[in-house]
Every structure is written in structure tokens, then in C-alpha cells.
């Protein structure tokens, strides 16, 4: 009653990124999705680096299911990132968003031809540049001391004033850190080639002990990275009300499009200067 013939599993192409040209010798050293190999699909003077993926795990329906599984999501994100990072070490790369899957190489080649101008433009723009992340967290208790209320009203009134100050200190700390974050971002954006702010990470996800007020990404020329790091240090000294953390270099995930649109929702707003 049961048949021994396995149904053929259809295979798709998971796109990691687009480069001007891929060195097959380098690609041979890179591990793709599920521990598989990666290969280049060449067309229109560009190369798309892809992993072969079974569509029973990576088709649209399967992806919707799998993306909701943290272990799967982490594995996929890390595998994808490893390939993109390897590519970025050899030259400019336009990283693909996670879960960009095509039916076959022909479709990938057609995409390269169709988007050639955009992709080539992006590769030019990203050449010799890397993405750096700067995150800023609220520093509890860094609120500038308001003058100690003195005189008038005796101990009871003084207690009430102190109590009120304690209650507003948290909001105040948050507000002051947010202002510092905006100032830090403006200074870093001025130094960087391009800049954008991601939505601050939820504390449950970041694991940080205080709220995040800045989740910035900065595209920096390779030659000015030391200056950028020095500026971060300087800004950290100038703004003790926010704790800064530098990460990178990242492949230019946040700068794939020429003018990244601002996030629709910010818990922190830009200062108005």
C-alpha cells in the first residue's frame, strides 16, 4: 500500500547577497544553509551567491512556520550572516534580507538583470565602507542633581518633595538619556557616510538592565574607522547619562537601499535641531 518512491523534493535558491564577482575558490570555503555549499549565479555582470534549499523547509508556507521557531530562526540568521560576512571580507556586498528565496537559478539571473542598475549602484556606494552599530542605554541615577530642596515647610514637606523627586527621577532619567542619544546620533551621523536608527530593542530581548535609547547604524569609510571609534569614546565621556556600546564591523545590512526610510515607530524621537 505504501510506495517506496520518495517524492522528489523541489529545491529553491536562498539568496545571501550580490557581489560584483565571486571567487569560486573562496565560495568553496564557505558553508551555506544547513551546512551545505554556496554557489554563484552570474548574470548581467554581477554574481548572486546562493544556497540550495529544499522547498519543503524553505517554501513560503514552511518559512512562515519555521520563522516562528526561535531555534530555527537563529540557525538560519547565523548561517545567512556567516555567508554574507565571508563575502564582505572579499569586497562590497549587497546583503539579501533573511528568507529571500527564488525558485531556481534562472529566476535569480533574471533578478540580477532586472535590478542591475540598482545593485551595481549599491555596490559602488558600499565599496570600502562598513557598518558599525552604536547602542545607547539609560544610565540609572545619572540625572543631574536638582538642587536639594531646602527650607520651608519642615520635615513633612521636605519628605514629600523628596518622594516626588524620586518618582519623577525615572522619567527624567529616560528623557535625559533620550536627549543624549539624539545628540550622540547627530554627531555620529555627521561623521559617517550614512546613518539610520533602528527601533530600540526590547529589554526582554536585549537582556540589558536598563532601557535602550539609541540603536544606531552608521556606514563608515574603512579609513576613518579609528576616528569613528574615538568619537564614540569621546561622546560617551561627554554624555555620562547614556552608556554607549559599539558593535561591528557589520556587512552593510542597514544601508542596502540608498535612502533608508526612517522607522515608522520610534520610542525615541530625534531632537529638533
Amino acid at each position, binding site marked *: 500500500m505504501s510506495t517506496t518512491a520518495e517524492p522528489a523534493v523541489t529545491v529553491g535558491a536562498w539568496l545571501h547577497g550580490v557581489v560584483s564577482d565571486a571567487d569560486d575558490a573562496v565560495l568553496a570555503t564557505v558553508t551555506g544553509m544547513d551546512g551545505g555549499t554556496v554557489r554563484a549565479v552570474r548574470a548581467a555582470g554581477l554574481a548572486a551567491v546562493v544556497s540550495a534549499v529544499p522547498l519543503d523547509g524553505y517554501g513560503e508556507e514552511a518559512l512562515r512556520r519555521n520563522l516562528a521557531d526561535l531555534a530555527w530562526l537563529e540557525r538560519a540568521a547565523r548561517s545567512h550572516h556567516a555567508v554574507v560576512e565571508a563575502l564582505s571580507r572579499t569586497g562590497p556586498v549587497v546583503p539579501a*534580507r533573511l528568507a529571500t528565496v527564488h525558485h531556481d537559478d534562472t529566476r535569480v539571473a533574471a533578478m540580477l538583470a532586472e535590478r542591475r542598475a540598482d*545593485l551595481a549602484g549599491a555596490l559602488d556606494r558600499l565599496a570600502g565602507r562598513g557598518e558599525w552599530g552604536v547602542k545607547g542605554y539609560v544610565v540609572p541615577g545619572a540625572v543631574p542633581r536638582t538642587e536639594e530642596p531646602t527650607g520651608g515647610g519642615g520635615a513633612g514637606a521636605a519628605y514629600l518633595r523628596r518622594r516626588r523627586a524620586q518618582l519623577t527621577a525615572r522619567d527624567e532619567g529616560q528623557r535625559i538619556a533620550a536627549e543624549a542619544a539624539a545628540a550622540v546620533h547627530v554627531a555620529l551621523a555627521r561623521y559617517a557616510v550614512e546613518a539610520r536608527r533602528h527601533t530600540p530593542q526590547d529589554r526582554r*530581548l536585549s537582556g540589558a538592565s536598563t532601557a535602550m535609547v539609541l540603536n544606531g547604524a552608521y556606514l563608515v569609510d574603512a579609513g576613518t574607522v579609528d576616528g569613528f571609534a574615538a568619537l564614540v569614546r569621546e561622546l560617551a565621556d561627554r554624555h555620562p547619562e547614556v552608556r554607549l556600546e*559599539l558593535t*561591528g564591523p557589520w556587512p552593510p545590512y542597514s544601508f542596502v537601499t540608498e535612502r533608508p526610510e526612517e522607522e515608522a515607530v520610534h520610542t525615541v524621537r530625534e531632537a529638533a535641531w
Partner: protein
Amino acid sequence: MVTTQLAPSTADDPLAYRPVALVDLLDRVLGTGVVITGDITLAIADIDLVRISLRALVASVGALVPPEVAS
């Protein structure tokens, strides 16, 4: 005491391997500037992708961490 955690000077050694925080990675690989859309995953819009994944994250983290002060 405020500390700035600067990454090791990767400018000196770009090949240095450093583990990457999953949240930082997801900020970047999910829906930040899309120039290419896969023909199979066309229907999984940015918002969808982020929402689906965040639900997975929050659900998993929520199971580990005692519920924090709301908001």
C-alpha cells in the same frame, strides 16, 4: 561608572571572530532596506517577517525570564 564597550580593534584584524548577539543580527537581517525580493517569498512582507520572528523571540524569552514590570 560609565563604561564604553568598544569592540576589539577589528580594524587591525578584520578576520577576528567575535560572536554576534542574535538581537543585533535580527535588527539587520529582517527588513532593513530590501532591494531584492525572492519570487517564492514575495508574499512574506517585511512587516510579516518581523512580526512572525519577534513573536518567536518574545515567546521564547518570556518563558525564560520572569515577567517584567509592564511597559
